[in-house]
């Protein structure tokens, strides 16, 4: 027997479950800490997808409880449409099984691996089966199954199955036990916070051991469920085209119209003529020598982009802003949803948002939140096309400093929604470097950058105007006093300058020789109703104009005068006192108000 025969005996098929059991790091189960995050993420992805399909407002319970030293029990329960009992074993205990892989539309889960991989990981570390309960409608009872995966064959094994009563009319609950540690807590909360930003219609109740809290929904509209569409001719690859033609019994023109989106009769004929092929030829008869020009023609003929509106479900500007406002305090916030675009035949939409100022840390790199199909990406930021695109924007031209990422009090959110998100690995941590996607991210960020620049320069302009007013009202009188002293003449009156230069309401307070003087000039062109607040240790008992209201607390007197000044009019009050304290006026627009405390 030759050696090759001997070797041949050892050759055999490998079950995909075996493969991933041995290579669990590829699925995001590389450490016990990460395993718990990945599991919850996969379960929540499924719940949110299912609720969307059923057009139900998601109400999801996440519970993590330590049941022995290193064993944790995780439960995720939703109010989705439920799963019919016959499909429960395959959905939860067979890798590469699912409803969404073959559909061209945006979903969170795509690969049919996620939750089954969690089941595999659970049985590997604790030997315990996963317990799934599901109910499809109020008329039926719930079904509870105890499931494991037969690794050698990647087939589900049902250890027990019973019908049970359940409080929910429909929904699914999955319970897994595996080894982990509590280091995951912080990351888990981060994951839930970000998930809740991009799923503003979902409510999450969280129980971690004895602690419980809630992420509330800010929108009560269920986003429309993306509808599956046909593939787009652009970016279809030769191998796929060959398979499609071989399986079809249609003539070429009809094949094109039927099989692809956005191809009507006219476009189909254009493709045929460009490829120099008879539009009536049976496509199953086409060989490579015809398919090659056909593919070329499909990709060079002008065809509209697939209508992203059907198959994709962007969050929309408005809801992104709402979600961000809920979780962050910001001075500026703006979001953009780009028009749909295409890469390799897959539709996608990029959404982005920028937040600035507020409670964000004033220094250091921007906070970057990455999302794909409404799922937050928590790991491998450095390897992600989103990060890359953010870094390639020239932020300096928008008045923001940059070192790789932009720096300063900035938050950047980028959401890539696609019928097929090109992840760099099954663990779905990072988007691969697809030029079309990077370009769209760049465009979205550039639009937002221009808005941010406008905000920043408006802020600077306001500062400048304030500054000018302050100069005129507080410094020029001092110059006048000193110049008067030098030339040995009476101090010039500077109110003319104030009046001419500015059209504002000027409040001045000064004290000297045991007298306090408050003076208001209305240099604006309109009448102003002013509430003057003066808080100090003086009771102003002898005020030349008695205050409309006085109150005392701990020796501090709050005096309020209600004053109406028509354009050009002035108000003045003096009283005996030592001054100090604070002074303010209400009722005048912020940008028309100048308050000068000459004692400070």
């Amino acid at each position, binding site marked *: 027997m030759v050696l090759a025969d001997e070797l041949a005996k050892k050759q055999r098929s490998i079950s995909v479950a075996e493969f991933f059991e041995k290579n669990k790091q590829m699925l995001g189960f590389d450490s016990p800490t990460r395993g718990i995050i990945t599991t919850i993420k996969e379960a929540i992805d499924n719940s949110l997808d299912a609720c969307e399909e059923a057009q139900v407002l998601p109400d999801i319970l996440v519970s993590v409880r330590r049941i022995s030293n290193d064993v944790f029990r995780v439960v995720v329960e939703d109010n989705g449409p439920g799963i019919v009992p016959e499909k429960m074993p395959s959905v939860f205990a067979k890798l590469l099984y699912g409803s969404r892989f073959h559909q061209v539309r945006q979903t969170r889960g795509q690969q049919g691996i996620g939750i089954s991989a969690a089941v595999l990981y659970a049985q590997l570390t604790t030997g315990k089966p996963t317990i799934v309960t599901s109910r499809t409608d109020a008329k039926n009872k719930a079904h509870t199954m105890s499931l494991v995966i037969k690794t050698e064959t990647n087939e589900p094994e049902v250890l027990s199955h019973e019908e049970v009563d359940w409080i929910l009319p429909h929904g699914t609950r999955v319970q897994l036990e595996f080894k982990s540690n509590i280091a995951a807590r912080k990351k888990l909360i981060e994951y839930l916070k970000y998930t809740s930003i991009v799923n503003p219609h979902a409510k999450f109740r969280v129980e971690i051991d004895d602690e419980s809290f809630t992420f509330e929904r800010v929108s009560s509209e269920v986003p429309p469920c993306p509808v599956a569409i046909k593939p787009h001719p652009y970016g279809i690859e030769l191998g796929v085209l060959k398979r499609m033609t071989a399986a079809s019994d249609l003539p070429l023109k009809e094949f094109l119209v039927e099989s692809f989106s956005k191809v009507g009769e006219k476009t189909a004929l254009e493709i045929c003529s460009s490829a120099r092929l008879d539009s009536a030829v049976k496509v199953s008869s086409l060989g490579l020598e015809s398919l090659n020009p056909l593919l070329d023609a499909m990709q060079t003929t002008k065809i509209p982009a697939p209508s992203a509106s059907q198959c994709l479900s962007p969050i929309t500007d408005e809801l992104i802003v709402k979600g961000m406002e809920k979780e962050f305090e910001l001075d500026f916030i703006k979001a953009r949803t780009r028009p749909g675009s295409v890469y390799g035949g897959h539709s996608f939409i990029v959404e982005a948002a920028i937040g600035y100022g507020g409670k964000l840390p004033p220094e250091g790199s921007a906070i970057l939140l990455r999302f794909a199909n409404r799922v937050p990406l928590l790991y491998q930021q450095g390897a992600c096309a989103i990060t890359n695109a953010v870094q390639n924007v020239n932020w300096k031209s928008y008045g923001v400093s940059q070192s790789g990422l932009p720096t300063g009090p900035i938050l950047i959110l980028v959401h890539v929604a696609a019928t097929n998100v090109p992840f760099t690995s099954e663990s779905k941590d990072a988007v691969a470097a697809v030029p079309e996607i990077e370009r769209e991210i760049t465009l979205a960020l550039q639009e937002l950058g221009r808005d941010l620049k406008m905000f920043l320069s408006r802020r600077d302009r306001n500062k*400048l105007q304030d*500054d*000018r007013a*302050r*100069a*005129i009202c*507080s*410094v*020029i009188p*001092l*110059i*006048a006093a*000193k*110049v*008067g*002293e*030098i*030339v040995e*003449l009476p101090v*010039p*009156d*500077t109110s*003319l*300058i104030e*009046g*001419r*230069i500015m059209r504002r309401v000027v409040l001045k307070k000064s004290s000297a020789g045991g007298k306090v003087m408050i003076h208001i000039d209305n240099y604006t062109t309109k009448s102003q109703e002013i509430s003057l607040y003066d808080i100090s240790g003086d009771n102003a008992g002898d005020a030349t104009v008695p205050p409309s209201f006085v109150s005392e607390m701990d020796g501090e007197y709050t005096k309020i005068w209600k004053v109406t000044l028509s354009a050009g009019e002035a108000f003045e009050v003096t009283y005996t006192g030592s001054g100090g304290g604070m002074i303010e006026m209400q009722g005048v627009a912020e940008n028309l108000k100048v308050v000068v405390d000459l004692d400070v």
Partner: protein
Amino acid sequence: MSDPTERDTATKKRLMEMAKVWYDQMNNGEIPSITLPTRTKYNIEYDDESEVWKYGDKESVRNAGTAKSATHMLKMAYVIWFIKTQLQENRSSTLREMYYISEGWKQAKFGAQNESNYLIEDLEIITAMQREFFHMRPEEDGASIFGPIRIRENTRRGMKEIHCQDDVGEAGYNIPNNVENVELVDHDASCVIAIETGGMFSRLQENGFDEDYNAVLLHLKGQPARATRRMLKRMNEELGIPVVVFTDGDPWSYRIYASVAYGSIKSAHMSELLATPSAQFIGVKPSDIQRYNLPADKLTEQDVSALRAELTDPRFATDFWRKEINLQLEMNLKSEQQAFASRGLDFVTKEYLPSMLSEIGVLKR
């Protein structure tokens, strides 16, 4: 204006006129403003009449329309007031003292030392008067002088008459910070040699160069103080003694020469008083480094950029300087004046200086 009292009265009057302009502006409801020439090297021009470089036509207007410039004008008002008081009380002070006195000026308080310096320069420009007239004393003394010249100094302790060779120690006569108080009495000098380093000053003294050639030796002590430049100007103008400048061969030394001969950019408004246009350069030239094979150092980055800047400086816009500076950039070398020592301690007094001074026509032996 040699009479101090008269000088003080005129100065006070000028300052009050200036304040009056602002006073009137404000009374007319205008924001007070001042106009100043732009103070960069792109705005200095050669004045044919006085033969010095002065500020040109470019002007900038400052008005009190922003908090920053209003505060600036407020400070100027305080300074004018302070000087007026000082003149009235016949006191004087240094810039640094004024800086500290401004502590009590509230909003007009100076933020940093150089702010008060800059303000005094502005005032000099606007009033066309020297700071010495304001009784503002510079920090640094002037240079030392050693040579056949007799002066009379009006000191606080009375009039002193001093011969700068016979009545002084080896370190020479120290120029006081206000040269206006010095009267030049008589002299027996063929030229004034302004020398950059103390080592070379001593070398010429030790080798008896002042006696052999009737030269007045003047130790510049680096970038020359105002008093030094004023003294050189006066010796040249009033006594008609030729001035030569003997420095190292590097860009900083050329600037020393330029500030003696053409005036500095910082005090271009004082050029007529401070610059000695006829002063000639006899320092180490890049071509000397080659000719005498002098020990030399590589140029640093700062040197190179200083040389480059000089190429765009109007004061160096002559064939001589362009040729030498370009040569230096090409050789990438610089030498100190004491490098002549590598050819023996007497080389500089026996060979270099006599031949240089004859070449430029200062010595006729």
